[in-house]
């Protein structure tokens, strides 16, 4: 390593010498700069420059000159008038509605995990306080100046990157003015979403100072991949991870890991509380607001119950038409790519999927309820057991954070140096001998009357097929972490199986059945049985992608690409007969067109994914007020806007 350093210094001298020599012979100020990363010369390139640059040894280790200072970050938060931002994009939301949309931490207020105690540092709009913090941080406002400067005369400015979406352009412009009022110049960069969320650009490569985008909140807050120290994306780990701020607060990191590694809700609430206190205090990501979302439907539709945390078709089996009609028309802004849930995770797929496949459980109103499962597995009802086991070197385990693989994707085994969680909850580095760890064993029991839409009862072989297929690395799925965390599965009956996870695995969502079901008896059009088809072919099968069998309330009978999906009531549905016999899903990409069809009576339901929260919501509100027979439901959505602050620069 030392030799390499010497070589690098020698090269740098040679470079300077060559530049000087070149400068003697010509007027062109050109030099050769050795561009280095770590301590290795990686590229030689001609650069218009006058001095050789000494490059930092590691990436993203230098604190950002402004955002590295907590006072600046908190000052930004105090200078942000969030109700004003909400009003700029949702003029139809009143003051009470605005309060519902505000967030103080990373967890929406309606969530069971949200903490609202006095330890949470809040940032109500207070420009005076914000400016005082800027002053304290050394960024002062000279008399008559618009923007602050530091002792060196550098102007206080930050690049603010977000997408080009009109919605974000609107609130970003207001935010820019709010910051200018506090003496901070915001340089707005509206990049195409393809760049901002691209796999080798924008967020993924932490190419921002302040960055605004949205996360979709879930019934279970999770958060490990967003805030844990080991989830910071840097060049060294191939940019894997979603902690784009580069924030590593060990207390918060441990808390978020712990919250996701216990099954006892009280414990989880306590860990999330710890996390939220740290999150709010450090102010590394400013939660701006929960987006508003609108759902609209014909007044004729009864039992329409959209929820922020569940797809609005979750209770389609309860839907009824007041006029006794038997056909309902839904508009979807996007067409599902495939009904093969393993490879297609778009919201529209899940919206349709609920009607075809049902779901093991619903997540209505920020909590879990059993659906296709007979009951939610828990420690209390004995369906989840946590056993203490003694693990020795070479045994399969997951690490202390619940990760089943190393950064290269290799399955972990207990080896020297691996940090694991002991049965007493302590994180230890394995150095030999044995270690006592917890092992989770969970039993999942499904409704005994589940029947495929062709009349065949769901059976053991269907679960076995799903396990075999979905955990096959060639299946096309993106995330195999659950499969990789399973040690063994015991399919005990036609509606029950027991999963033994690897020692150390303690996912708080372990009550969700990890294994789906596929109709193993299904015979394809080419005569083969589904169970005999290689996994690589599944995504291209019409019987899987377009006309799948399910045990949900409806059967997908016809799919005219780009036009519509036609569903009819499933006569074998385990909950009984549906009142609405036919549902047609029209693909209507343009929201204005969808609203026009709702108002003209061609469409009965426009969900939030199609109606959104733009000007069209006002249109339907006005139409309702004008007497059109429609119902409009506007609530804070699970999606929340926030501004990430990149704490380090390369």
């Amino acid at each position: 390593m030392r030799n390499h350093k010497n070589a690098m210094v020698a090269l740098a001298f040679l470079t300077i010498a060559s530049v000087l020599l070149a400068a003697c012979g010509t007027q062109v100020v050109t030099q050769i700069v050795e561009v280095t990363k770590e301590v290795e010369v990686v590229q030689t390139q001609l650069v218009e420059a006058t001095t050789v640059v000494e490059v930092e040894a590691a990436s993203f280790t230098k604190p950002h000159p402004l955002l590295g200072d907590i006072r600046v970050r908190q000052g930004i938060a105090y200078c942000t008038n969030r109700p004003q931002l909400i009003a700029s994009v949702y003029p139809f939301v009143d003051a009470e509605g605005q309060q519902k949309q505000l967030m103080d931490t990373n967890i929406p207020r309606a969530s069971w995990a949200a903490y609202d105690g006095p330890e949470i540092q809040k940032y109500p709009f207070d420009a005076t306080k914000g400016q005082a913090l800027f002053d304290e941080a050394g960024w002062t406002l000279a008399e008559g100046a618009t923007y602050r400067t530091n002792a060196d005369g550098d102007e206080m400015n930050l690049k603010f990157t977000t997408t080009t979406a009109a919605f974000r352009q609107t609130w970003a412009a207001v935010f820019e003015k709010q910051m200018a009022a506090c003496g901070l110049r915001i340089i707005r960069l509206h990049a195409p979403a393809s760049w901002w969320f691209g796999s080798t650009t924008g967020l993924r490569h932490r190419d921002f100072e302040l960055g605004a985008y949205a996360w979709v909140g879930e019934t279970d807050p999770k958060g490990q991949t967003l805030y844990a120290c080991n989830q910071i994306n840097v060049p060294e780990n191939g940019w894997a991870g979603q902690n784009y701020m580069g924030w590593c607060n060990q207390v918060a990191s441990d808390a978020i890991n712990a919250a996701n590694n216990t099954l006892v809700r009280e414990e989880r609430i306590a860990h999330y509380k710890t996390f939220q206190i740290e999150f709010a205090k450090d102010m590394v990501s400013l939660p701006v607001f929960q987006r508003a979302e609108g759902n609209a439907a014909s007044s004729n539709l009864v039992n329409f119950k959209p929820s922020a945390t569940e797809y609005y078709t979750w209770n389609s089996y309860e839907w009824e038409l007041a006029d006794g009609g038997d056909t309902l028309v839904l508009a979807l802004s996007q067409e599902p790519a495939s009904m093969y849930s393993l490879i297609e995770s778009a919201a529209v797929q899940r919206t349709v999927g609920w009607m075809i496949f049902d779901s093991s459980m619903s997540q209505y109103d920020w909590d879990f309820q059993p659906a296709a499962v007979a009951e939610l597995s828990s420690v209390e009802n004995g369906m989840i057991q946590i056993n203490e086991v003694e693990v020795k070197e070479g045994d399969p385990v997951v690490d202390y954070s619940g990760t089943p693989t190393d950064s290269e994707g290799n399955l972990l085994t207990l080896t020297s140096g691996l940090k694991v969680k002991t049965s007493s909850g302590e994180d230890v580095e394995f150095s030999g001998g044995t270690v006592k760890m917890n092992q989770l064993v969970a039993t999942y029991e499904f409704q005994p009357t589940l029947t495929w839409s062709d009349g065949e009862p769901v059976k053991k072989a269907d679960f076995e097929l799903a396990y075999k297929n979905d955990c096959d690395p060639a299946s096309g799925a993106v995330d195999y972490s659950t499969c990789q965390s399973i040690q063994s599965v015991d399919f005990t009956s036609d509606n029950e199986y027991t999963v033994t996870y690897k020692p150390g695995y303690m996912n708080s969502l372990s009550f969700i059945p990890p294994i789906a079901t596929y109709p193993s008896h299904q015979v394809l059009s080419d005569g083969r049985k589904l169970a005999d088809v290689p996994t690589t072919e599944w995504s291209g099968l019409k019987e899987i992608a377009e006309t799948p069998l399910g045990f949900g309330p409806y059967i997908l009978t016809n799919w005219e690409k780009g036009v519509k999906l036609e569903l009819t009531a499933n006569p074998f549905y385990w909950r009984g007969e549906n009142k609405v016999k036919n549902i047609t899903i029209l693909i209507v990409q343009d929201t204005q067109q969808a609203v026009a069809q709702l108002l003209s009576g061609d469409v009965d339901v426009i969900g939030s994914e199609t109606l959104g929260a733009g000007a069209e919501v006002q249109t339907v509100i006005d139409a309702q007020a004008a007497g059109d027979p429609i119902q409009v439901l506007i609530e804070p959505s699970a999606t929340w806007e926030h501004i990430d602050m990149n704490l380090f620069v390369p």
Partner: protein
Amino acid sequence: MFNYLIRRLFQMAIVLFLSTMASYALLNLAPGGPLTFLTSVQRRMNQEDIARVRAYFELDLFLPVRFSRWLTGFPRGPITVGGQTYFADFVVGCRQPREVEIRYSDGRRELKTVGCREGQDVTLADLVDRPRSSKGIIFGDLGNSWQITRDRPVSAVVVSRLPRTLQLMMISLVLSIIIGIPIGVISAVRQYSAFDYTVTSMAFFGSSMPTFFFALLMILIFSITFKRMGWVYLPPGNAESVKDYVIPFIGAVDAGSLKDNILHLIMPVSVLTLFNVAGWSRYVRTSMLEVLRQDYVRTARAKGLIERVVIAKHALRNALIPFITLVVFSIPAAFGGAIITETVFNWPGMGRLYFDALGRTDYPVAMALLLITAVLTVVATLVCDVLYTVVDPRIRLS
């Protein structure tokens, strides 16, 4: 003529190759792509996961190799001759690229890919078991869709959209010709008359009005307002209805019937036709005015021919020669669809498909549509040149 056609066909092949290469490169080098969705939800990803997904979409292959596989279906693996395998270790891609950051003295920083991480090369031997390879578009295989109909043939989705687009565009094209040419002729013959001024004003209105605005205005007036007032109204969108409905004065309309289809066609066809007529009528008018001043028209009149014959047989025929170019080039456009009109009226055609494909970064579908348009355009160019020889005896192809 034969030699000319051979030469042109050869040129067409080169143009097509270059245009597809440019389109393919532009689409694939643009930011975004099918991996964008990975960052949209909370997900624990490691390098292996990212590499696996990249391999699934063949993004781990070098661009020229990907293009070659898309175009010809090759390379599909090492070359095997007489049981002997060659070039098995030839590197054609990289599973995990190696990136470095370059820092300049002026503060700029730049991220560059400088080769591949050790042991992460993709070789020809690795291509053997790839499930996603197609036979190549030159063999008629447009490949599989990435997003719109994931992993299923692009050709199926294209074929499903073609009839609706042709229906919309052809009706609009025919109506535009039937209306546009007479208007242009009458405007030219009666230059500076009240009719000419009126038509000119309308043409400017039609040309300058954005189609999306005009389309939305029509929906607001003829669908929503008219329905609220209890008048005859038109369906706001789609190619046909799902449910039967009743329109005042027209009566019951069965979903999917011819009447239903016609009612749905009226607004989108009107928008497209108005736009075409506005431009084409001006084109024909200008062309006619030029021809009407020609000596042979004066001669025809001097010979005592009646005005209708002079206009129709001597003037119009010559005036329409440049118009052929416009009409012939409308054919590729007819296959390509009208992106804005189809989107606003939710018409399930090729234009909407293209819009969707770009929005969802489904490059195989977008490339297929670009390829079809490119092929039709070069064919239209040839047809146009050949047609000139038919309508104008002075032109010889050699």
